[in-house]
């Protein structure tokens, strides 16, 4: 007798989901063409992207001129077709864009500085690399001094290279690096001072911060470069680049302090009290309990400031220091390369460089933030 009831002994193998809900077609349908509005947005975005990307690709690669020795090679009359980017112009001026007027036979010193900086920086950025403390001391303490002597020279048998000969990306990086290294400690001290319970210290910090935040960077640079010599005796003459660096550090420090103060304010009072209860003094409490948490919170804000600083460096052009953009503008004036596309080519090149550096900084900051925020949901 067979049972009327059927009991399945095994599970049915799960069948595949309907073809319309998996894989690329489904993703496309759901995400890009899910509704009429969605579809319209997709089509419009695609059109805008195509309208932007295709001319860029044409300009940068397809129509570009790759070989040449003067403006004649980048003229429509010569190449007999529409001309895109004039890359030989960049090639001819590349050394100036990178090093400014740094003597060609001394450029190895700049490159060596870059290499040493990278060798020290990269392990510092990789969380698993060992000897973090030593590495940090080398990078933040020893490297700036070494870089100073290497770039300026005048000691250890290296010929002196005046800072007025520096330029291009070198100056951009020097100002950014000095700004970052100088503004973070200054910002921490100012932020702590502003929250201090000592009235004089607090007032000083408030006035300092508000002053530097209230004055535009251009004014700071201009004053530091052209007005200070009026007030200082002849023998006190500071190097023009040093004056600019000091101005940038003070300026960036004031902004940094407000960013850090935001982090300090976000730390619950209980953390301070707990640290006190453990018998920690002020500095130990700050160094081991409060600041590590506060700085972690403000990483996005700090990186924002770094990127802003990196791009603000272009303002030094007004005090006769040529950063990357300044060198670019000077190169535009060379009648040997003046063509309809020279300016576009130059800005395309500078844009790519600025983008790469800013993008790398912001990506790395995102990574650090994700790593540090494990277990803490914000």
């Amino acid at each position, binding site marked *: 007798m067979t049972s009327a009831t059927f009991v399945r002994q095994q599970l049915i193998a799960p069948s595949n989901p309907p073809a319309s809900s998996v894989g690329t077609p489904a993703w496309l349908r759901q995400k890009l063409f899910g509704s009429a509005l969605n579809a319209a947005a997709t089509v419009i975005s695609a059109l805008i992207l195509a309208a932007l990307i295709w001319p860029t690709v044409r300009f940068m690669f397809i129509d570009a001129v790759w070989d040449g020795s003067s403006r004649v090679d980048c003229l429509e009359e010569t190449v007999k077709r529409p001309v895109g980017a004039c890359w030989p112009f960049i090639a001819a001026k590349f050394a100036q864009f990178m090093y400014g007027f740094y003597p060609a036979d001394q450029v190895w010193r700049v490159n060596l500085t870059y290499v040493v900086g990278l060798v020290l920086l990269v392990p510092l950025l990789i969380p698993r690399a060992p000897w973090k403390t030593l590495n940090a001391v080398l990078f933040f303490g020893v490297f700036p001094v070494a870089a100073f002597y290497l770039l300026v020279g005048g000691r250890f048998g290296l010929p002196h290279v005046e800072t007025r000969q520096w330029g291009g990306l070198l100056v951009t990086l020097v100002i950014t690096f000095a700004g970052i290294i100088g503004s973070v400690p200054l910002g921490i001290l100012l932020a702590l001072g502003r929250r201090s319970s000592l009235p004089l210290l607090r007032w000083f910090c408030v006035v300092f911060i508000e002053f530097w935040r209230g004055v535009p960077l251009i004014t700071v640079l201009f004053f530091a470069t052209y007005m200070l010599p009026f007030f200082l005796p002849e023998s006190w003459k500071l190097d023009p680049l040093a004056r600019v660096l000091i101005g940038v550090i003070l300026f960036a420090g004031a902004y940094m302090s407000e960013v850090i103060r935001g982090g300090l304010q976000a730390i619950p009072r209980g953390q301070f009290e707990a640290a006190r209860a453990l018998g920690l003094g002020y500095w130990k409490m700050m160094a081991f309990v409060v600041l590590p948490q506060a700085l972690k919170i403000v990483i996005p804000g700090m990186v924002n400031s770094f990127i802003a600083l990196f791009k603000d460096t272009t303002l030094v052009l007004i005090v006769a220091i040529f950063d990357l953009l300044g060198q670019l503008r000077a190169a535009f*004036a060379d*009648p040997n390369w003046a063509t309809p596309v020279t300016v576009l080519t130059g800005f395309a090149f500078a844009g790519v460089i600025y983008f790469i550096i800013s993008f790398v900084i912001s990506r790395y900051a995102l990574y650090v933030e994700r790593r540090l925020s494990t277990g803490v949901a914000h």
Partner: protein
Amino acid sequence: MKRVIGVLGLALAIGLSGQADAQTLKTVRDRGSLVCGVSQGLPGFSNPDDKGNWTGLDVDFCRAIAAAIFNDPTKVKFTPLAAKDRFEPLRSGEIDVLSRNTTWTSSRDAVFNFVGVVYYDGQGFMVRKALKVNSALELNGASVCAQSGTTTELNLADYFRANNMKYEIVAFGTADETIKAYESGRCDAFTTDVSQLYSEKLKLSNANDHVILPEVISKEPLGPVVRQGDDQWFDVVKWVLFGMLNAEELGVSSKTIDEALKSKQPEIRRMLGLDGTHGEQLGLPRDWVVRIVRHVGNYGEIFERNVGTSSRLGISRGLNRLWTKGGIQYAPPIR
């Protein structure tokens, strides 16, 4: 507070008077180099070449000063300055001389000293060849592209009114926008200083379809500037310019300088320091013209090399010809 202000005021006064008394020539000699303010990039006047050396008419003038003082045209440091910030560094002593295509005007001369005119510039017009216009006087009813907020607009209005012509101005914020608008056909003519017209012309896609009209409708004498209150330095810089002009007038160039040194002609012998002590009287070495011409060249050579017809710009000498050749470049005699 009052005391603080007093101290600051005193410091300012000392600082300012300290600058005014400065013996610039001595400072330059002691430093071993000249510091010269130039533009941050102006085609043919001062721009870095592919090797990173500054070149141009304004730059060569600085090299000529260095050649006269040090017998070495390389002993000069260039400080590239933006147009609006050019006078502060001169006032504060950051630079010794400003050679930055600066127009000589009465209000500027009231505060500084202009040593002379290195280049007689003036506002002109560029039009398409297809318009078949040969003179600015045929521009009646034309639309003209100009940069707004400059004296260019005012000069344009004056010129058209004076000649009873109608025009329509199309103004733009920057030089780049203006030339782009002209190129795209927004207007019939493009106006700015003539030296600028030639350099902007290089940026047009079909430069040969455009022509620069002969009329110059404004006076823009460009010259080097020094501080007031240092007469010796003023003389030195002035006579570097006059030396270059006199050398051209007397036919002494960098190619003929060695023959000229054997010349019997009294004017040439005086100029080259073979007779008399004219250099020393000015605070310059006796052979200052020889040094300038040998290392940098006479005025004509410098002009041709940087902006003239043998350069990329191809500007004709025009007003900048010597007075003996129909221009207005004229230097007092060395005597």
